[in-house]
């Protein structure tokens, strides 16, 4: 039985993307936590940077936080992370060398 069938045994036609990709409840909470943490960091670090006119620092920090939110959203939707892609690429080489 798939995750979708387990979550919706009667087969109602309401489409739920979380059930489709098999997102666990814990992962969902972590994604929300990460988005809130990113917002909190942007406020705590961004406001003093803005007041001091350090726009370059603000831009780099915002880019990092934006990347973090995008990666967290990717995890939430079941997309592979950059490290998973790296692993798919290099693991066969590693397995050929090491036991």
């Amino acid at each position, binding site marked *: 039985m798939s995750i979708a069938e387990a979550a919706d045994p009667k087969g109602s036609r309401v489409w739920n993307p979380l059930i489709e990709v098999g997102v666990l409840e814990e992962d969902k909470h972590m994604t929300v936590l990460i988005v809130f943490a990113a917002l909190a960091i942007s406020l705590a670090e961004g406001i003093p940077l803005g007041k001091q006119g350090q726009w370059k620092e603000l831009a*780099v*920090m915002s880019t990092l936080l934006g990347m973090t939110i995008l990666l967290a959203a990717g995890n939430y939707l079941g997309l592979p*992370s950059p490290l998973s892609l790296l692993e798919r690429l*290099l693991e066969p080489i590693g*397995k050929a*060398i090491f036991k």
Partner: protein
Amino acid sequence: MPEKGIINTKQFVWMLFIIITTLAAMQIPSMLIMQAGRDAWLSVVSAWFLDVMLALVYAYMGIRFPGENFVQYSITILGKYLGRMVGILFPLFFLLVCSLMLQGLSQVVNTIFLPMTPFNVILVSSFLVSAFIGRKGLEVIARMTEVLGPLFFFSIVTVCCLVLPAVHMERLKPQLDEGIAPFLIGTPLMLTSFGVCIIMAMYIPLCNRPENGFLAKFSAVSMGALVVGLVTALSVGIFGIEDAQYMNSPGLQLAKMINFSNYLERVEMVWLLILVGSGIVASSSLLWAFGQGLAQIVGLKTYQPLIYPGALLSLVFCIGSFPSSLNQTNFFHYTFPIVAAFVETGLELFLFATALVLNKRGAA
């Protein structure tokens, strides 16, 4: 330079020692035993030798480009654009190591000591503390390692001395029964873990005696090799290769064996306390190196606003890429050595050769 702090040689040694040993002592011994069997300790010795050779290159580059770390001298050697593309690989590598280290540490704590606590609670707490320390700057990290480093070293050596009577020498024999191939294949596995101390190139410009870079690395990696070699050899001698190769943290299992009749038990708690402290300080150092490197590449005045976002990014890597301890162990065993060899050895030797060919030097 974004970082204004200065460290001394002693702090330099302990910072490197903590990074090497925390990463190497947690998971590497079992992987090494799986790879090289009874000859695992020989892999540690050969990796130590190769790492010292590599340290010569890093120390030479530190002197050839005074006041510059590898992020900065990659720009000096390769130019503004290509130099930045190569240079950014170093901070990203530190972020990856930070993810692996904290994931491994949290797994040990979760599996062995806090099995009822949700794993993510331990992981998030570890990241929070690491980022808090990392944001305080290099001097704060250096002062903490001055306390934790000697404690960590002497605790492991004491544990090893106390479990010595339980060693069965026959479990360590015969040596080299399958030839030299197993320990030679185990060498790169160990070398890539020792190689994380390429972070020395970030410390050299901030050390009050930059010419001591090689000495610091030599001392740190020698102590690290001693610790890992002892843990590996004793694990084989006590548990045998069949059991030791599947242990989560053989050092911790050794500490669990200590028991003086009924009045001194659970000594592993003290060891774990020091391991967790060292792991968190080592991760904060890696987060600091990430922030400092990125700030230098982009040309920022300060690195501090990048520490918390860096820690959050690292946390997302952990959650997204290593949903279970098996995923992390697999990544650490098969993928990390390839990535680490490319960054630690390949990139640095490429920069070294290019600097020689193009006759590039730093401004004295």
